[in-house]
């Protein structure tokens, strides 16, 4: 099954993925594609419903950098696990454009990649596994050491070393 794990909890997805659909559901939370957003921006805002947007891996987040306040979800697609563009997009959205709400990884999301995604700023994941939450927790326990600073604020090995030197120095 595919389950949505958000902030470490298995949650029900209240959003309908209408990206690329001819027509939107009458009401309720929807996720639209970039083309739909650009073509029907005003109508989408007038719906007064929670709104999400899904970007393909060839759609850079610069395209929505001025609009992020309107989205409750931004979903970034991994069409193939080896297409790594969305890792950079996620960091740009979080660290440069200041996006604070749900950032969802969709598409071919492999368990081995979850910790990378989390560090780049994703907080929600579409996980294909009989036990999505169990698989998520197991995958995240693989690593406890990080060398690179990112927006998730986890201390890097360098920061921990420096802290220790200051304490003992």
């Amino acid at each position: 099954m595919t389950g949505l794990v958000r902030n470490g909890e298995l949650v029900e997805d209240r959003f309908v993925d209408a990206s690329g659909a001819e027509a939107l559901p009458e009401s309720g939370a929807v996720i639209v594609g970039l083309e739909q957003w650009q073509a029907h921006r005003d109508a989408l805002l007038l719906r007064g419903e929670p709104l999400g947007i899904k970007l393909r891996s060839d759609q850079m987040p610069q395209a929505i950098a001025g609009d992020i306040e309107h989205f409750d979800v931004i979903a970034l697609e991994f069409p193939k696990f080896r297409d790594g563009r969305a890792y950079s997009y996620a960091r740009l959205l979080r660290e440069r454009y200041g996006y604070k709400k749900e950032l969802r990884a969709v598409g071919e999301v492999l368990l081995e990649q979850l910790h990378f995604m989390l560090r780049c700023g994703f907080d929600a994941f579409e996980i294909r596994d009989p036990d999505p939450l169990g698989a998520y927790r197991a995958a995240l326990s693989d690593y406890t050491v990080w060398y690179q600073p990112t927006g998730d604020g986890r201390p890097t090995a360098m920061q921990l070393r420096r802290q220790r030197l200051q304490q003992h120095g």
Partner: protein
Amino acid sequence: MYRYDEFDHRLVAERIAQFRRQVRRRLAGEITEDQFKPLRLKNGVYLQLHAYMLRVNVPYGTLSSRQLRKFAHIARTYDRGFGHFTTRQNIQYHWIRLEQVPDILEELASVEITTIQSSGNCVRNITSDQYAGVARDELADPRVYCELLRQYSVLHPEFSYLPRKFKIAVTGSPNDRAAVAVHDIGLRMHRNAAGETGFEVLVGGGLGRTPYIAHTIRDWVAPEDLLAYVESILRIYNIYGRRDNIHKARIKIIVNQLGIDRYRELVEEDFAASKDTPRPELPPDEIDRIAAFFAPPPYEALDDITDELDALAAGDARFARWLRHNVAPHKQPGYAIVNVTLKAPGAVPGDITAEQMDALADLADEYSFGELRVNHRQNLVLPYVRQRDLHTVWSKLDALVLATPNLNLLSDVISCPGLDYCALANARSLPVARDISARFVDVDRLAAIGPVTINVSGCMNACGHHHVGNIGILGVDKRGKEFFQLTLGGSSDRNAALGDRLGPGLAQEEVPDAIEAIVDRYLELREEGERFLDTYRRVGIEPFKEAVYGVAEERAIA
């Protein structure tokens, strides 16, 4: 040299535990080879023609005797008693069993060696000058920055799924021995007008199907900004690099499609915008902390003993040849750098037996502060030998068949493993390399010919770097038969250049004769003090074409 602390050890242990689980799932049939492939590749495990191959990183080419003994142990215990050094400061084992790989990785981890990112579409082993720390012409030890880059690139959350592999090389010397201009990123240390040391950053070099010499993207990056600037280059590549065609996915392609000016603009924009966000700044005291690991060994206060060495050499022609060709000057008085070529006549370039590894480790302990280097020409180095020990070291190396006096001479051939091992190859490169080294065994003749680099690749992926060989040899497959195309004039040093194609491909058995003909023509044409490359640059390709193909034949082909 750098030593792991608890963080480094823990990360490697976690990595191995993860891979052990993945191997178990694969062996139990829970995941397919397709699903397993990207997992094993990121751990350096290839599936080749006959067996699994394991590629092990020697970070920036610095190796302790303890690590070399471990390599010997692995060769004996898990392989067929030998290993193979590559052009990227890696050692490869070609006869590995998958179920034993996690155990091998634990053995390697015990000496602070890994296979992490020795393959896959990520930042690979950071390579450097094999004379780092001991070269007379060096501004600063490049390994400090190599180690910082190594840590920075290991399991990078943003850049573990780049469009294609990514190779970074660093040189701290104006005489580039690390071939930085044919890397995805090349870093050259130099001093600015204020006397500070920083980096010239090159981008988009590479060999393979579409060879390019790198462009300078920035003349000057301060050390504290180095990682952040590299991060911006990687980010632009990750976003803009082509993912539609594996043969167009390297950074060199996108740099040349966008143009270096546009690529630079994108990088500079990102670099400026990243200033107020989390980015890998390098505090000066952190650079100092890492630099302390690369402090010079406890040298004795000695004087150079040039006269004594000359006297020894005068009485022993074999020692004299070795001294002239394989020993390089050292920055510390009374010391010398000893090169150990893995290119004995008829040998497979880069191959070394477990016994030779053990013996070399002993020599390093006794005569070189327990340290060795691996260069990008498939040779090893003893970096800290007292001049007064040179004769003893030579005689011990000689007994191990490791004193062939051919460094940078014609029989110091670089070769990829080719079709004898590799699933990608079109042709067998190793027999060609062997034939050449078997043909040119007369060391006096080699010395008379002078420096010539020969590089052999078994296919256009160019692992033998044939484009930058003074003489490049590329194996191709034409209707089921192997042919070898020659290029002349390539070079990977400071004036890096790609070779020019000489003419139609030759059969394997014709190659040694063609090399003879090229060499003879060079000897006819050369002027006082010229190396092969100098003569070639002066006279061009025509005289060599004629030497190999003959005037009549050339007309017939035209």
